[in-house]
């Protein structure tokens, strides 16, 4: 059957089960958009390509399926870059499609030419510059396979204009055959044996769980393991929701803004079981003092993560779910432990807390959102203090409910990610917790939410500052607030101008009614919470410091 490259592309996307594409058209994409016009695939038109990339990423995190975004050559493609880097850092399955100038014009600085495969080389799991429409079906199949298996990540397909236009024979691609790509899934028997022995010898184990638990769908196995060993679980930012936040064994988050009890537990444990985590510097602080007494077991699907940042005593490479399943089968239950008592005492002595002040406390708003959503909402965030408060005070119960830019820390992620999550989970209650700085980096996507009738709720914790940077200036630069105070627009009017509902909240008593109204509304609602201006995120491990030396 003879089909155009564009037709082959869309057919191949359908074959992969793609239900939605987040995109933005342009000259070289005309053949593709023409085919999409009649396709069953839903297309969401964002207002900026970065919005499309983040929305596809949010969709992927909320559903576990690959997100797809589409942008034109040159500026369209470069506008995707932050979104691709974000997906790369957080191991999110994303397939980014870009138009490219015709093959004959490549390399000549043609109009709207950008070497996007070159630009994204360090931030993609793999990429393709398609040379022949006959290869497209195979390439699309490989791209989805690579993006979604092993350690997931973004894959880019760059499509020159002539490739989408030209005809080729369409054949359904055969099985993927990539000799250089064979993820190891089952942990090595010997390593699992060593792990069980180390666990049996340990008196003070801590499980340190990362985003890999959620990616692998191993939250149930993680809970079983923790309960079997009575081992407390500290999660990373990416791991939130991988272990129930209200579970008696939960330590909440560890690291720079982790709970004191999580950080103390890591400092005093004799065995650290790292599961799908990567020992990021925001987690470990000073590596020299990280878990100094502990034997370290590292379970991860990506062998390159094992031993990258810390010395590991027992490396276990493999799919976290499979490894944990086998581990659980080999372990004896622990009945009671003095360690558990010690941790409970820390929890009582050093709970997460904030002081009362005259103004509206941002932490209180998160607590109220938690209470009024019954912990059932999907929470997307931007980057900054509000993100950390969301991580600390919303007790995530379920995987795929906390959607946040962890590794890259990209401001502007929250609202488009919330849009993607809402598209992927139409029945879910979705909140974007944003800062007054971050929200303005992709505020234009409010139009997208309004256009598609997405009932997302945006809660701006408006402190009139680039708060997180201001906090560092306060603590480490003698309160010299250089370029961090913001003169903001009227967010309520802005919301209304976009066709969303806007609510301003300045008093404690108004908090709950505003949240309730937002939850009930079937329109996008933006709440401008005018909060205390100079509230800080505590506890805090100063950058590069040791985990047991926390401020606040």
């Amino acid at each position, binding site marked *: 059957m003879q089909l155009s490259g564009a037709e082959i592309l869309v057919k191949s996307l359908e074959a992969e089960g793609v239900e939605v594409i987040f995109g933005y058209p342009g000259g070289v994409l005309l053949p593709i958009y023409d085919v999409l016009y009649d396709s069953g695939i839903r297309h969401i038109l964002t207002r900026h390509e970065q919005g499309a990339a983040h929305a596809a990423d949010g969709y992927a995190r909320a559903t576990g399926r690959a997100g797809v975004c589409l942008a034109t050559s040159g500026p369209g493609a470069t506008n995707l870059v932050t979104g691709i880097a974000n997906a790369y850092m957080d191991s999110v399955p994303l397939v980014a499609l870009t138009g490219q100038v015709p093959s004959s014009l490549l390399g000549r600085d043609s109009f709207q030419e950008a070497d996007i495969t070159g630009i994204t080389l360090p931030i993609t799991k793999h990429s393709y510059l398609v040379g022949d429409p006959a290869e497209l079906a195979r390439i699309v199949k490989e791209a989805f396979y690579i993006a979604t298996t092993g350690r997931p990540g973004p894959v880019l397909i760059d499509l020159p204009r002539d490739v989408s236009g030209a005809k080729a024979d369409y054949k359904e691609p055969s099985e993927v055959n990539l000799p*250089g790509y064979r993820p190891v899934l089952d942990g090595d028997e010997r390593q699992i044996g060593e792990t069980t022995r180390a666990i049996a010898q340990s008196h003070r184990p801590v499980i340190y769980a990362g985003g890999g638990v959620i990616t692998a769908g191993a939250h149930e196995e993680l809970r079983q393991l923790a309960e079997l060993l009575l081992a407390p679980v500290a999660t990373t930012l990416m791991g939130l929701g991988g272990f129930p936040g209200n579970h008696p064994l939960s330590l909440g988050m560890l690291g720079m803004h982790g709970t004191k009890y999580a950080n103390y537990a890591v400092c005093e444990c004799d065995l650290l079981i790292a599961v799908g985590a990567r020992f990021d510097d925001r987690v470990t602080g000073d590596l020299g003092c990280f878990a100094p007494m502990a034997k370290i077991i590292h379970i991860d699907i990506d*062998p390159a993560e094992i*031993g990258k940042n810390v010395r590991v005593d027992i490396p276990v490479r493999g799919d976290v779910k499979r490894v944990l399943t086998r581990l659980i089968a080999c372990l004896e239950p622990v009945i009671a432990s003095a360690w558990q008592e010690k941790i409970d005492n820390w929890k009582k002595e050093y709970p997460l807390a904030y002081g009362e002040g005259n103004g509206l406390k941002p932490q209180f708003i998160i607590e109220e959102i938690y209470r009024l959503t019954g912990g059932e909402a999907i929470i997307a965030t931007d980057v900054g203090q509000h993100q950390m408060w969301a991580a600390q005070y919303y007790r995530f119960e379920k995987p795929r409910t906390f959607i946040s830019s962890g590794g890259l820390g990209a401001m502007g992620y929250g609202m488009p990610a919330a849009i993607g999550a809402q598209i992927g989970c139409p029945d879910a209650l979705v909140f974007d917790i944003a800062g007054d700085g971050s929200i303005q980096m992709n505020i234009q996507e409010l139009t997208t939410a309004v256009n598609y009738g997405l009932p997302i709720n945006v809660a701006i914790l408006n402190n009139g500052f680039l708060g997180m940077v201001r906090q560092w200036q306060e603590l480490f630069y003698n309160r010299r607030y250089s370029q961090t105070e913001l003169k903001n627009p009227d967010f309520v009017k802005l919301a209304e101008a976009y066709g969303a509902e806007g609510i301003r909240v300045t008093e404690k008593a108004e908090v709950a009614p505003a949240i309730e109204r937002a939850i009930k509304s079937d329109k996008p609602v933006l709440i401008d919470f005018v909060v205390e201006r100079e509230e800080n995120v505590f506890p805090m491990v100063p950058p590069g410091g040791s985990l047991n030396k926390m401020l606040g």
Partner: protein
Amino acid sequence: MLHTLAVLVENNPGVLARVAGLFSRRGFNIDSLAVGRTDNSAISRMTIVVEGDDLILEQVTKQLHKLIDVIKISDITKDEYVDRELVLIKVNADAATRGEIMQIVDIFRAHIVDIGHKTLTIEATGDEGKINAIEQALRPFGIRELARTGKIAMLRGFKASSVNNNGKEDV
């Protein structure tokens, strides 16, 4: 310490950029890199000499493995292997020095591949030590131009770092 890696890659466009980019991005030092295709035209072989301790080497290997186009990596440093490098040297030569240069060429079992008005071009192959030595020996005459291929290497005996036609590793 210098390690010699034999890396088999799919012969796809951009594969060299992927490998080279990985080294610079992760701060690994390449001492030399030589690429060419193998008996299977779909597969190229890179010989990469990289500087680093065992920990760095472990990271280099693991990160290289993450590239989809990389099929197989063998660190052959600790095995018995043959390695060769080829060099072309254009050296100043006049009637007075020509004889002496030709003697050096003989000693190193090198060849003269071109004779110019005032120059000789010499080709030599050998391991790194030999190539360094001939370069040293010719330096006093004035080297006008020098090109080295970088080293290629292969295990001695029956052992091989190759893949068969299905891309499966040979045993």
